[in-house]
């Protein structure tokens, strides 16, 4: 009989027993991230367990500590030059505050982390750039830390492995930032001339003054799938040339096609491959890291 059914039909949530009786999904459900490639929502725990890679293969950006966790042998990392931090040489408006805020939010002191490490037992010097610290931009401190790392590696006859991510030179430090390109390149050259091995892994995004210096100076250059790598910004190029950019412009795959990277290596394969390359290029008389 339709009539009583109509009468007892609940008219709102409260009549069903209130909000608390309904399954509470939004609070208990795990936080998730939507993949820009496959558009599926991925729970963060699953993402983290998979080195920040979606099941479709999309590589999310990754902070230095998380990267260290999948690359380094357990407890083998020793940080170097952590005492070197950014100043504000030009007293650029807002820069000091921005640095302070970034240090708090990223819990890192600078846009690059340097140190010695073992990867599958192979000792080396390692630098990891930090996407969550002013997008890995290079000022005096970043240049100084990287230069010191290459000088340290030269002294101890160690290979250098570097993961790059950078928006380029840090404009708030003006010419001081620009000069870091020459300074780091000089240190890379000395290390190279001594017959020592330098491996770079380009990650998303590697651009500007970092692309035009130490990122492109490796003996072997690897890249992560889909990473944006270029010198000038894509939007700037589009505005300047008023031409539509080709599909996949400035991706790792584009660079591979044009002969500027050796291989594209997903995160799951990096540790084993880097260890192999370190073994192949280990220097005579190299010290333990």
């Amino acid at each position, binding site marked *: 009989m339709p009539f009583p059914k109509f009468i007892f039909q609940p008219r709102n949530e409260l009549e069903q027993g209130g909000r608390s009786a309904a399954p509470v999904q939004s609070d208990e459900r795990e936080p998730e991230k939507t993949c820009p490639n496959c558009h599926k929502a991925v729970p963060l725990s699953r993402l983290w367990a998979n080195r920040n890679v979606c099941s479709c293969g999309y590589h999310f950006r990754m902070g230095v500590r998380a990267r260290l966790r999948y690359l380094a042998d357990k407890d083998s990392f020793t940080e170097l030059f952590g005492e*070197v931090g950014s*100043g504000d040489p030009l007293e650029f408006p807002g820069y000091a505050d921005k640095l302070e805020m970034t240090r708090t939010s990223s819990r890192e002191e600078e846009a690059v982390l340097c140190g010695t490490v073992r990867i599958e037992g192979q000792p080396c010097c390692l630098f990891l750039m930090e996407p969550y610290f002013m997008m890995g931009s290079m000022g005096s401190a970043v240049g100084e830390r990287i230069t010191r790392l290459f000088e340290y590696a030269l002294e101890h006859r160690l290979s250098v492995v570097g993961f790059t991510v950078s928006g380029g030179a840090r404009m708030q430090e003006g010419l001081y930032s*620009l000069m870091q390109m020459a*300074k780091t390149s000089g240190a890379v050259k000395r290390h190279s001339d001594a017959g020592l091995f330098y491996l770079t892994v380009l990650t998303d995004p590697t651009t500007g003054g970092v692309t035009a210096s130490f990122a*492109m100076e490796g003996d072997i250059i690897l890249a992560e799938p889909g990473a944006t790598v270029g010198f000038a910004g894509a939007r700037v190029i589009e505005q300047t040339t008023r031409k539509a950019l080709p599909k996949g412009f400035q991706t790792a795959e584009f660079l591979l096609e044009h002969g*500027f990277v050796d291989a594209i290596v997903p995160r799951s394969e990096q540790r084993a491959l880097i260890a192999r390359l370190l073994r192949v290029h280990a220097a005579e008389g190299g010290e333990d890291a």
Partner: protein
Amino acid sequence: MNRSAYETVKLARSNRRPTGLDFLHGVFTDFFELHGDRRFGDDASVVGGLAELEGKNVTVIAIEKGHSIRERMLRSFGAPQPEGYRKALRLMKQAEKFHRPVICLIDTSGAYCGIGAEERGQGQAIAENLMEMMTLRTPVISLLIGEGGSGGALALAVADRVWMLEDAIYSVISPEGCASILWKDAKRAPEAAQQLKLTAQDALAGGMIERIIPEEGLGKPEFYESLRHELSAELAGLLAMDVQALLEARYQRFRRIGKEREA
């Protein structure tokens, strides 16, 4: 001098200013141009070749913007392609082989920004120059004569001496680019120019350059003559140095630049 930094920017960019080729022909004699990078092509915005400086053989490399609009387009307004940097490096390596010093004349708003430049590795071309110039076994003097636009200028300025014309600029980014990134407003470029510390005085104070060339009589024969004497005297000093000492000094010249704080 009460001029604002942005007025200096405008002077440095002025198309009434002598260009790279004007300097080249004003200062050097018997120039013979050498074309091409032996890899892909010949970039018209970088001009290089053999020349004499007070009877001494040198390699000269100049970034040329051009004067007329037609010439400016041909030279892509002095924004080098990767081929330009690779040609410059080829000529520098040649100079090293034959023990000739190198003089670079720099005037660029920056490396060319385009699809082809990216396809042919603009970043890699600049990076290679930075690395190779650091250990080039012959003296290098770079002269910033107008705009010193970021990595595109630095790619010819890893030198033993870097001099700047009084009204030249040297900057990590254009004031317009800086203002639009930081404040989303390119019209605030004058403010950015002030903050970026891009004048010759600023660069001298920061240790990025060794000398400022006064612009009195700029473009006149006497101006070029006095510059010729200065370059010639400086080169004589550099040529007298032991090569290892020269390279060590060049490395340290850049090694010491940076202002960081140690915790």
